[in-house]
């Protein structure tokens, strides 16, 4: 048996036939035995019918079926492969979009990787270098109109201001970006190396430095070390080149100030090489700063000295690609004022021909 409260709660469901058969029977039985609930049910049923009639009033309505069917693309769905593919794409639009973006990214990365693989890092570094050493290339431009550099260009040997400066920039970048690295080693035993260029002493006489393992002019083949000696304490240490595959070697050094030397650093092997690029190197810490590179494999700095606040250089220039000593000349390179870390402007002049 159900209560009157339960009956009234379930009346609407009962009217809508939304109760189970058992409940329907129970509600019916209750109604038959309870006049008040029966009256309540009849009122509710009448109300329900009235609401339903108002809501579902017979609005005049002409079917829109034909218009609708004529307005849709009947071939949108179907069993044929084209329709199925279309549906598949529609259904997985987001997935396909994501995959497309991923493929595109992958291709872009691959292309970039391919470039690096073909051109090597030089290509990329060159671009960076152009940005970083724009003022260096400016300095090259300033001297490119000298007759000497006209003969220095690779290929057809015809000088071209633009090519020359670009070439210089790229070369400088290599050196500017990838500075030589040295390992400092304290020497326990104090000895005077017998095979070395003469010791050169710092302006304050405290330190002396030399290119070890090479003769007086440091022209011998091989990777040399830089030896440093503290004249006051007798301490001695050396800087060994950390191999980077280039086989470059210290070629020459001259003191710049009490701590640093002007270091010429170039190919350690080969007879056609006489110098290299110019760096500033701290003899206590081994810290290296780039100063200047000719930017061409046909010319190298062979000597560098301090001149007041600037630097005077000698630059050996091969006149053609045979790189013979007979066909070369020497130029001077003047840096009027040098400050560590700053870009330099070099004035080059022809001194003599061989």
């Amino acid at each position, binding site marked *: 048996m159900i209560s009157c409260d339960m009956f009234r709660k379930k009346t609407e469901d009962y009217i809508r036939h939304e109760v189970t058969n058992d409940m329907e029977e129970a509600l019916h039985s209750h109604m038959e035995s309870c006049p008040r609930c029966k009256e309540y049910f009849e009122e509710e049923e009448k109300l329900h019918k009235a609401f339903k009639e108002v809501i*579902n009033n017979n609005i005049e309505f002409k079917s829109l079926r034909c218009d609708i069917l004529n307005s849709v693309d009947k071939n949108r*769905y179907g069993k044929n492969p084209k329709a199925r593919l279309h549906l598949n794409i529609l259904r997985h639009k987001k997935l396909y979009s994501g995959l497309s973006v991923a493929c595109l990214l992958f291709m872009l990365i691959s292309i970039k990787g391919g470039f690096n693989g073909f051109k090597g890092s030089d290509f990329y570094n060159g671009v960076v270098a152009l940005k970083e050493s724009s003022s260096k290339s400016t300095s090259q431009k300033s001297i490119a109109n000298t007759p000497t550099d006209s003969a220095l260009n690779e290929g057809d040997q015809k000088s071209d201001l633009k090519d020359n400066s670009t070439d210089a920039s790229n070369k400088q970048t290599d050196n500017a970006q990838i500075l030589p690295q040295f390992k400092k080693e304290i020497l326990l035993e104090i000895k005077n190396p017998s095979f070395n260029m003469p010791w050169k002493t710092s302006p304050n006489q405290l330190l002396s430095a030399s290119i070890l393992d090479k003769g007086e002019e440091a022209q011998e083949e091989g990777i040399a070390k830089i030896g440093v000696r503290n004249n006051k304490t007798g301490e001695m240490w050396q800087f060994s080149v950390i191999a980077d595959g280039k086989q470059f070697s210290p070629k020459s050094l001259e003191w710049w100030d009490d701590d640093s030397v002007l270091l010429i650093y170039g190919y350690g092997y080969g007879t056609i090489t006489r110098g290299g690029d110019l760096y500033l190197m701290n003899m206590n810490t081994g810290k290296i700063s780039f100063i200047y590179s000719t930017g061409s494999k046909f010319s190298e700095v062979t000597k560098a000295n301090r001149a007041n606040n600037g630097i005077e250089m000698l630059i050996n220039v091969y006149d053609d690609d045979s790189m013979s000593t007979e066909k070369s000349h020497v130029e001077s390179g003047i840096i009027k004022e040098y400050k560590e870390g700053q870009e330099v402007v070099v004035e080059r002049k022809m001194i003599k021909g061989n």
Partner: protein
Amino acid sequence: MEDIKGLIKIKDDLELVEEILKGNMDAFNIIVNKYELSIFKFVYNMVRNREAAEDITQEVFITIYNKLYLYNKIYKFSNWIFQVARNKSIDYIRKYKRVYESSIEEYANLSSYNNEIEDSAMYEELISTIVKYINTLSQEDKQILYLRYNNEEMTFRDISEVLNLTESTVKRRYYKIRENFKTNQNNTERRCGV
């Protein structure tokens, strides 16, 4: 019981949907035939403009057809159609910034009530009272009433899905609408000395 009825309907509609996706236009024809009147009335109830209601109804079915691949089968198909219809109607109302408020005349003109008890003056009076009362309701309350009493006989859960409300909110508002009506009706009868 509500659930069983719902399941039967879902299965029928789901089969039709599958058929449409296989390219069977007859299935779409059945769907249109089955729902167009309900949708038209629902839309008309919202926009109160016959031409607009017809246009919107047409648009609803075209959208349903074009986006059928997006239909999520965990929901009842009828709920989805009504939801699309409601959204389209709201778009129309927003676009034209107007809602035709229903009037007794409109209802009277549009309706021809059940013949079974049409002789009863009291029943006519009841109909008239309901029409007046519905005119005082908010749009959302009208939609709840419509969805509850239309021929689809939606459950509270269905209505909540269509209107994006919770089931309990729909129930509470529905029973409040009914209670308020009874209260109004009693007050009217008392004033008339019935």
